[in-house]
C-alpha cells in the first residue's frame, strides 16, 4: 500500500486487482451476451447458441408494429429526456448557488430532496397519478411524467452541485468583483465557466436518468408510452430476440450520450491544463529566453 517502496507491488495489490477484474466482468459480461444475441438469425431464439447472424430483429423492430409503438416512444423518450436535462441543469445550478448562503428552511429543503430521492419510485408515481386524477387533469408524458422524473433527477443534480461547489475557490469570484464585475457578469463569465465540467455532469445525469426511468413514470405516463415502458411491456409478452435488439439500440444511445459528455469534460480539462502550462512557461521564459517564449506564446494563441 502507500508505505510500499516504489518498486514491486505488495501481494494485496494482485488480490485486489483480481477482485476488481472479476467485478468488471460481472458488470459487463451479461450485457455483452444480449448484445451478441440481438444479432440472432431469423430462426434464432432467446438463448445461445446463435442460429446465424443477421439484422433481422432490428428490422423487425421498425417494420412490425407487433412489438408496440417503438418509433413514437423513442421520440417521446428523447424529447422528455432533453426537457428533464434543461430543467434539471437550471434548477440545480440555482439551488447550488442558494445553498452557499445560510437561509431559513435550508435543512427542510435538503431533507425533502433526500426523501424524494429514496422514495420508492412506484409509490411516488402512485401519488402523482392520484394528484392528477383528483385535479381532473389527464396525465401525460410532458406533464405528470415529467414532474415525477424531476423528483428523481433534481436531488442527484443538487448532490453533484454540492460536490462541485465544495471544491470551488471563492478567490476567483472575489477577484472578479474587485475588478468591477457585476453580480451577473461574475456568475456568467467566472463562476459558471469554472463549474462547467460539473454542470455537464448534472446534464448527463438528468438526461440518462430520465431516458431510462420507468418505476416513477409507469403510473403517471398517461396514454402514450416512453421507451423504457415499451421495453417493460415487452419483457412480459415478447419472447423473441427483438427485445434484445431494442436493448442493444437503447444502450447504444446511452453510450453515445455518455461518450459526448465525458469527451467534452475531458476536452475542457485539457484546454485548461494547456493554458496553465502556457502561462507558467511565459512567466519562466521571459527571464531565460525571451524570443523562444514569444514564439511559444504566438503558437499558443494561434490554436487557442
Amino acid at each position: 500500500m502507500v508505505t510500499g517502496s516504489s518498486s514491486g507491488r505488495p501481494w494485496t495489490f494482485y488480490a485486489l486487482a483480481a477482485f476488481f477484474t472479476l467485478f468488471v466482468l460481472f458488470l459487463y459480461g451479461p450485457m455483452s451476451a444480449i448484445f451478441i444475441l440481438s444479432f440472432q438469425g431469423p430462426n434464432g431464439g432467446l438463448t445461445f447458441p446463435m442460429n446465424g447472424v443477421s439484422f433481422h430483429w432490428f428490422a423487425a423492430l421498425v417494420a412490425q408494429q407487433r412489438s408496440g409503438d417503438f418509433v413514437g416512444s423513442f421520440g417521446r423518450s428523447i424529447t422528455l429526456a432533453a426537457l428533464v436535462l434543461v430543467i434539471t441543469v437550471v434548477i440545480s445550478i440555482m439551488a447550488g448557488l442558494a445553498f452557499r448562503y445560510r437561509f431559513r428552511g435550508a435543512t427542510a429543503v435538503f431533507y425533502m430532496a433526500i426523501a424524494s430521492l429514496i422514495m420508492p419510485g412506484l409509490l411516488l408515481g402512485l401519488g402523482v397519478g392520484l394528484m392528477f386524477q383528483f385535479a381532473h387533469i389527464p396525465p401525460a408524458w410532458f406533464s405528470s411524467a415529467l414532474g415525477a422524473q424531476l423528483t428523481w433527477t433534481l436531488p442527484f443534480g443538487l448532490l453533484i452541485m454540492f460536490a462541485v461547489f465544495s471544491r470551488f475557490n471563492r478567490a476567483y469570484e472575489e477577484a472578479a468583483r474587485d475588478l468591477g464585475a457585476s453580480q451577473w457578469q461574475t456568475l456568467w463569465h467566472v463562476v459558471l465557466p469554472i463549474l462547467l465540467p460539473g454542470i455537464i455532469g448534472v446534464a448527463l445525469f438528468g438526461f440518462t436518468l430520465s431516458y431510462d426511468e420507468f418505476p416513477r413514470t409507469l403510473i403517471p405516463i398517461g396514454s402514450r408510452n416512453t421507451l423504457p415502458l415499451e421495453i417493460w411491456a415487452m419483457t412480459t409478452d415478447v419472447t423473441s430476440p427483438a427485445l434484445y435488439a431494442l436493448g442493444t439500440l437503447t444502450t447504444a444511445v446511452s453510450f453515445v450520450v455518455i461518450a459526448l459528455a465525458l469527451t467534452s469534460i475531458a476536452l475542457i480539462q485539457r484546454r485548461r491544463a494547456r493554458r496553465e502550462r502556457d502561462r507558467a512557461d511565459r512567466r519562466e521564459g521571459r527571464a531565460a529566453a525571451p524570443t523562444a517564449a514569444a514564439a511559444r506564446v504566438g503558437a499558443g494563441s494561434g490554436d487557442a
Partner: protein
Amino acid sequence: MRAPQTTPPRLTSAPYLLVAPLALVLIVFFGIPLLLVVVVSFFDLDKFDIIPTFVLTNYSELFGSSLTYALYAKTIKYALMVWAITLVIGFTVSYFLVFHVRTVLWQIALFLLCTVPFWTSNVIRMISWIPFLGRNGLFNQSLMALGLTQRPVEFLLFSDFSVVIAYVHLFSLFMIVPIFNSMARIDRAVIEAAADGGASRFRIITDIVIPLSKTGIALGSIFVIALVMGDFFVVKVMSGGQSASVVAAMSNEIAILQYPPAAANAVCLLVLVTLMVAVIMRVVDVRRELSG
C-alpha cells in the same frame, strides 16, 4: 467540511429566490403526492371506486393478513443480503482504486469503467441475466464444458439467487460511488504516520480507513436499502413470478385499481424505510458531510 470562507455578498432575498424552483417542484411532485397517498390510505373502496371517507379497514386488513408479514420478511431479507454483498464489493473496489491505483488518470479511468453501466437502462441490464443464467445459458455451458457438472444447474434462474444477483448488479454502483468519494478524501499522511508507527495493514483499515469513510458507507447503505425495499420489477422478472416483495404486491393491487389498500401498504413501507434510514443517519451525520 470546509473552513469558513468569506461569505458571498449579503442579499437577503437571493437564496430564497434561487432555491424556490427546487422547493416548488419538490412540494408539487413529491410533497403533495406523498400526502395524497397517506390520505387515500384511509379512504374506502367500493368495487373500483374510491370513496372519500375515513376508515381503518385498509390497515386492519393489511395487519390481519399473514401474507403481509411474509412479504415484509422477504423484502427485508433481500435488502439485508444485497446490502451486505454490495458493502463488501463497494468497500473493496473503492479501497483498490484509492490506495492501490497510483496515477490519477488510471484512477479516473477505472472509476468510470465502474460507473458507465449506471447510465444505461436498468431493465436491459436486468434481463441480460436471463440468457446468462438460463438452462442453456453461458454459465451452465461453461460449467459443463469444464466438467464440473453433467446436467444444467436449475436453481440459477428464477430463484432467490437470480433476484439477489440482479440486485447486486444494478445497485452496487450506489455503494461504490459514495465510499470512493469519502475514501479519496482521506489524508495520506495519516496512513503513513500509522504505518511508520508500526500499524499493520489490517489495523490501518479497521482503525483509519473504515472510520474515515463511514459517511460514504452510510450514504451507500441508505441508497441500496431504499432501492431494494422499493423495487418491484427485479423481483417480478428475475424470480419468474415465484417470489414477491412489498412493492410488487402493491403494483398488483394498483393494476386492478385497488388504490386505498395499496396506499395503506405504501404508508407502512415508507414508515419502515424511514426508520431504517433514520437509524443510519443517527449513527453518521450525513448532512454535515454533504453540504459543508
